């Protein structure tokens, strides 16, 4: 979708690149109308304003009323979220839904500590992927620019914070998506909330060794397709198509890897509140919308089609209602048990949420703490624990040394980056071209 072929790219500095309202550079030959602009009629924008006012009232100043409101009217919240969180409030609301705000407030200074003082075994892996994450977005495109730097910091901090998981390819797209709506530190704590839990932990266990949860999701999805779309399911079986060929990205990045951004955002709104179920539902809705075409295609065209859904199918206002109409909760749970019955004997790969939590708490504080015990005499792992390590003096001291370390780390980053960059000069040349184009556009 966002590919640019340098072989055929004119690379002419004269034509300024256009970006969409989310900051993604539009493909040059984009003839498709901007979905969002189209829906923005005058009455549409009035409706939008009313919506924002409702939301503001619901969350209160700085989110102060949120918890109360959710407790009192969970269904109203759910309904409003499904209609889409207003873009201007999205960053804040995501933090409220996930509970990451609380993590942040409980742990002042911890993020900086992780970024500055700790080293991660994944640093090189992260750096290698930085320029390969949302490469067509203006914020992340500039080499060593604020976008790439924040992305690196968040991913590195997380890889230190959760050494069992470390860094896994795919996380970058999630962190990247978050960074377009909030600060580095906020994005970090939201990542923690997703993977380790605050209110709930919709991605817990997803990136563990062996990707056990991804495997379980693919198993569940495979059977759901067969049950809900039997004709298509039969066709898939005949053509030897299985979900790992097309859907692993859906689960690993929650549609942020290659789907239209406005759709990804709407899915994320719901994902944060309702959890992974929405990924299954949207997946099934996509297949259902294209069922008639898909059943006609042979293997190769089928794989292609499953990675390139037509634009009209990906309109959130038609796709999402279809997704919500697909009821799968009960079946999803049953299929999970079925999967565990078959694969459970492999042991650790299947970790139920409850067990996992215990595991994290136990392991976490032993494994991690060793590093910290040496330095600080205290360990850092679970949010509860993390919050203890900072006294106001410590925070102040850290802040004082922040600048020094940042410049040191920057040099280190540049060195590492240089060693893994291919054709760095070419990239820089293109960056500066693009930057100047944005400046003029």
């Amino acid at each position, binding site marked *: 979708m966002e*590919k640019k072929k340098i072989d055929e790219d004119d690379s002419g500095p004269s034509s300024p690149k256009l970006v969409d309202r989310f900051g993604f550079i539009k493909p040059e030959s984009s003839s498709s109308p901007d979905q969002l602009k189209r829906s923005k009629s005058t009455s549409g924008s009035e409706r939008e304003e009313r919506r924002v006012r409702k939301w503001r009232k619901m969350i209160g100043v700085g989110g102060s009323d949120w918890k109360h409101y959710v407790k009192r009217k969970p269904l109203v919240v759910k309904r409003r979220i499904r209609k889409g969180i207003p873009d201007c409030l999205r960053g804040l609301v995501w933090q409220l839904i996930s509970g990451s705000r609380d993590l942040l407030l409980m742990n002042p200074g911890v993020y900086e500590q992780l970024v500055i003082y700790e080293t991660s075994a994944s640093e090189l892996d992260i750096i290698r*992927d930085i320029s390969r994450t*949302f*490469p067509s977005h203006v914020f992340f495109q500039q080499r060593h620019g604020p976008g790439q730097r924040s992305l690196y910091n968040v991913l590195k901090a997380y890889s230190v914070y959760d050494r069992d998981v470390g860094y896994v390819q795919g996380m970058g797209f999630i962190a990247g998506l978050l960074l377009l709506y909030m600060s580095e530190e906020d994005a970090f704590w939201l990542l923690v909330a997703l993977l380790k839990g605050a209110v709930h932990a919709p991605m817990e266990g997803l990136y563990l060794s062996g990707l056990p949860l991804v495997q379980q999701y693919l198993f569940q999805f495979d059977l759901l397709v067969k049950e809900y779309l039997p004709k298509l399911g039969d066709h898939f079986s005949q053509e030897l198509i299985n979900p790992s060929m097309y859907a692993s990205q859906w689960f690993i990045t929650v549609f942020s890897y290659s789907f239209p951004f406005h759709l990804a955002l709407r899915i994320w709104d719901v994902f944060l509140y309702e959890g992974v179920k929405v990924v299954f539902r949207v997946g099934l809705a996509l297949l259902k919308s294209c069922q008639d075409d898909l059943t006609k295609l042979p293997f*190769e065209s089928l794989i292609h089609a499953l990675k390139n859904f037509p634009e009209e199918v990906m309109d959130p206002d038609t796709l999402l209602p279809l997704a919500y109409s697909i009821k799968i909760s009960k079946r999803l749970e049953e299929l999970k048990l079925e999967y565990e019955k078959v694969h459970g004997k492999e042991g650790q790969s299947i970790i139920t949420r409850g067990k996992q939590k215990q595991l994290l708490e136990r392991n976490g504080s032993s494994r991690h703490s060793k590093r910290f015990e040496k330095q600080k005499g205290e360990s850092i792992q679970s949010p509860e624990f993390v919050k203890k390590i900072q006294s106001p003096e410590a925070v102040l001291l850290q802040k004082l040394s922040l600048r020094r370390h940042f410049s040191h780390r920057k040099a280190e980053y540049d060195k590492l980056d240089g060693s893994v960059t291919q054709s760095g000069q070419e990239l820089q040349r293109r960056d500066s071209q693009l930057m100047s184009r944005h400046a003029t556009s």
Partner: protein
Amino acid sequence: MAAYRAEDDYDYLFKVVLIGDSGVGKSNLLSRFTRNEFNLESKSTIGVEFATRSIHVDDKIVKAQIWDTAGQERYRAITSAYYRGAVGALLVYDVTRHVTFENIERWLKELRDHTDSSIVIMLVANKADLRHLRAVSTEDAKAFAERENLFFMETSALESLNVENAFSEVLTQVYHVVCRKALDVGGDPTALPKGQTIDIGKDDVSEVKKVGCCSA
């Protein structure tokens, strides 16, 4: 050579996998070979990607069905399922990063654990255009390839150097293996019924569509 043909117009269909550490250039090797494109702004591969291309070998059309896999260790649980039934493999490292060459041994073991012993493996030294950054010598790689009985080629997906050759060589060699096997099995390869799957690794994808003379 290697004209692009209609999708279903082939004599043989071979499954090939692209494996190696993250960031060595697997996806760009694939896009260079199948679409003659190189993308400086490519995203890291999550899970698996897939592309095909047909080439001529002798007077036959051989179609390659190529699976490009995520390189990160964590993904092997998903990607290793794709080794099954592969008759060819490109085992890729980055000449500017020695560690990617060191890891070849592990990739090789992984590959051999999951595939038939007759699989054709090409060791691919990619990013050969970055001469000033080279960290792995041609001699070391050649010696390793000889020791392990692998084909070897230095490529640059960026400069389109040897990419065509690397894939073609793998496909040609697989073709010869298949022909030899057909001869071993039936004596006369033309005797195999049309559409029968050639048993090279208990494959569910690679197949021979139309068996003709194989006098290589």
